[in-house]
């Protein structure tokens, strides 16, 4: 072994009191911004102020919030770099054009049409553009479905960042199972007292007493080999539930996170989500740059880090299709998926309902233009540096195994270790992932509650509802959505990054082609747009269902489990391509074909939206 190799970090670092203080300051600042936003939304009508910020977004707020990060940026993505190596640069490479595609393809027309139509939400936009309540309702249902998936997964991530910032927390795990499963004496006593549990079963369970299992599958595997099929059928579920750890810090983190984010979003609505998002994006920028400098300094340069990482892994770390830690022939990014991800990130950012509604809220085309400058520069300093940080991380922490999503927090704690006020600096860096998660949740809370209150309640149940009633219902919707997310996370949801990709794919397949048709095609008809939306969403959902439920064999399709990242929440990659490629293609064909086969839309409405309007005297 070469002498230049660095000693890996001796032990896992953990947060200190300064980390907690930094995060507390961050939370208070976010709350304060929510209060400021609350004052600002009081001009104009409640709905336009609360859900669209009175169409007054400036360049900074638009650029750094519309198409930027989610919790996945600081957790899932770094974990992939750590696990598969440099190929992840190509996986995320399409972000090089996201600033111009995000604002340049739809931005100007969406902002203009939403004004002409008086649209406040995305379903509003489709309903008014095509004069079809059915289209608005379908858009609302799709948004509620996809956004709920994305948002619920983010709550878990937020809770875990809170947990790991607690002083002395040894486990930094953000992975699916982060505490040991242990069957204690008191659990066995409960089984002994139960009717119908045989003494020989109790004896077998006693053999497992106080033995730690690293995760649920470890425990289940042991039970499978120890108990008879009858015993397994009768008691396996109860034994696993009894042995599951009660993670008080996780629950405390979940509570604080939920109160914070629901609280400030209720206070200031859309503007609170956007302003805190902006503040958090700025924090992320400085956090990443600081971590980049510290990481490179610590390992002695990028080339050294790459050489060391390849030595610890294999050729796949520095070449495509990416390193396969299991050594089973997995291809993380074959050519077909490289093309797919160049489509996915660009068009999912462009057609995300949370992003589109922010474009509708921008104040002018100058803002769109300036947003392109700002986001181009911002992305340059986020994604490539994060890749470099994680390659350095592989050198410092060579054996994270299934806990690779800890890499950014670990690097923050490890590289600041020798600085004065080290834990405070680490806390500031940790605020970046926390901020990304809060920003995502906050913006989805606004989109979901506007979907429930504006697009369903006001449109279909009580069109003449008073402003006070709408305000009450909007706040109540946020509280209910927060409670549902907490309930869904009592048993932490799995597959955060996979859910991010699923939700992004689903929204792109549902909304991209309809939005393009609405903006640029006079001949687009209601039926055509309905077909594009329905078949795009249906294609993505079908391919995900085939993958998740393992239906490929039943349908006679070739197995492709060894493509892409390791997760059981995976789509079926038809011909090796991600569902987004098929979803968009079918949506486009259906939209065009059905529009051409159905009567053209109302000429007066089209003229209002596509022709120059006479200037008012």
């Amino acid at each position, binding site marked *: 072994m070469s002498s230049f190799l660095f000693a890996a970090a001796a032990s896992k670092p953990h947060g200190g009191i300064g980390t907690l203080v930094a995060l507390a300051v961050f939370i208070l600042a976010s709350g304060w911004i929510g209060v400021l936003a609350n004052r600002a939304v009081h001009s104009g009508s409640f709905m336009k102020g609360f859900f669209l910020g009175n169409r007054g977004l400036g360049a900074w707020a638009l650029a750094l919030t519309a198409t930027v990060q989610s919790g996945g940026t600081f957790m899932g993505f770094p974990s992939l770099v750590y696990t598969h190596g440099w190929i992840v640069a*190509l996986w995320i490479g399409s972000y090089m054009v996201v600033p111009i595609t995000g604002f340049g393809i739809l931005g100007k027309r969406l902002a*203009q049409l939403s004004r002409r139509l008086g649209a406040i939400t995305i379903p509003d936009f489709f309903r008014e553009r095509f004069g079809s309540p059915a289209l608005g309702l379908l858009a609302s249902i799709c948004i509620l479905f996809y956004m709920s998936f994305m948002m619920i997964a983010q709550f878990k991530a937020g809770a875990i960042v809170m947990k790991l910032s607690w002083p002395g927390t040894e486990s930094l795990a953000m992975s699916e199972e982060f505490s040991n499963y242990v069957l204690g004496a008191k659990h066995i006593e409960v089984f002994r007292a139960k009717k119908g549990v045989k003494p020989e079963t109790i004896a077998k369970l006693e053999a497992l007493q106080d033995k730690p299992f690293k995760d649920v599958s470890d425990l289940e595997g042991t039970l499978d080999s120890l108990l008879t099929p009858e015993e397994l059928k009768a008691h396996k579920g109860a034994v696993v539930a009894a042995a599951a750890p009660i993670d008080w810090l996780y629950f405390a983190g979940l509570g604080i996170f939920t109160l914070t984010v629901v609280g400030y979003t209720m206070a200031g609505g859309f503007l609170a989500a956007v302003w805190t998002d902006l503040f958090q994006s700025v924090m992320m920028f400085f956090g990443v740059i600081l971590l980049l400098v510290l990481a490179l300094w610590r390992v002695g340069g990028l080339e050294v880090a790459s050489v060391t990482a390849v030595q610890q892994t294999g050729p796949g770390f520095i*070449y495509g299709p990416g390193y396969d830690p299991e050594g089973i022939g997995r*291809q993380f990014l074959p050519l077909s998926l*490289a093309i797919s991800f160049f489509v996915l990130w660009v068009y999912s950012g462009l057609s995300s309902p949370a992003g589109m509604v922010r474009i509708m809220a921008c104040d002018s085309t100058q803002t769109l*233009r300036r947003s*392109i400058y700002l986001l181009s520069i911002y992305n*340059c300093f986020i994604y490539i540096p994060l890749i470099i940080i994680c390659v350095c991380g592989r050198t410092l922490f060579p054996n994270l195994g299934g806990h690779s999503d800890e890499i950014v927090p670990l690097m923050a704690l490890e590289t600041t270790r020798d600085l004065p006020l080290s834990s405070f600096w680490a806390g500031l860096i940790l605020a970046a992932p926390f901020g990304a998660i809060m920003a995502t949740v906050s913006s989805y809370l606004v989109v979901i509650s506007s979907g429930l209150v504006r697009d369903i309640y006001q449109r279909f149940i009580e069109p003449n509802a008073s402003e006070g009633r709408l305000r009450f219902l909007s706040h109540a919707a946020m509280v209910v959505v927060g409670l549902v997310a907490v309930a869904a996370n009592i048993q932490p949801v799995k597959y955060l990054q996979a859910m991010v990709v699923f939700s992004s794919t689903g929204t792109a397949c549902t909304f991209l082609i309809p939005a393009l048709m609405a903006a640029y095609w006079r001949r687009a008809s209601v039926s055509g747009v309905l077909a594009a939306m329905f078949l795009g969403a249906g294609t993505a959902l079908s391919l995900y269902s085939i993958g998740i439920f393992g239906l490929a064999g039943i349908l006679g399709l070739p197995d492709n489990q060894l493509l892409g990242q390791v997760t059981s929440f995976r789509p079926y990659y038809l011909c090796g391509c991600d569902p987004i490629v098929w979803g968009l293609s079918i949506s486009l064909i259906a939209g065009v074909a059905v529009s051409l086969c159905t009567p053209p839309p109302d000429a007066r409405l089209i003229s209002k939206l*596509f022709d120059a309007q006479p200037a008012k005297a």
Partner: protein
Amino acid sequence: MPHIQEDPVLISARREALIVFACWVIAMTWSVSYCYLNGYITDPSLISDKKKVEVRQPAQPGGIPELWVDHGKGSQRVEFVLGFPSWIFWGVALPWWICTAFSLFFGAFIVRDEDLGLDPEAAAALEAAHV
């Protein structure tokens, strides 16, 4: 019958969207094809094989050790540019910087400023103020 003109915002937005679309196609074609041709191992059995990696002492004392990898065509030295593996530099990093420069140019010189108009609520408020 009076000649009806297309909305100027529609005209400029469509022109800009086509330019952006072309930029995405060029970026994808260059990045994916360059990386695939220069940075992929074609034999999947070599991906995780540590034996195919060799680190040689640098030619000059104090230099960075050289990384040699056998990816199916005999042992070859891995080239780095500014610390990046060269295929990542030419296939992703440099195009990213070029796209950033183009985005600045696009925002400054290609996107036309237009009047987006007022929504009905704002228009009514304005009208009421005039009355």
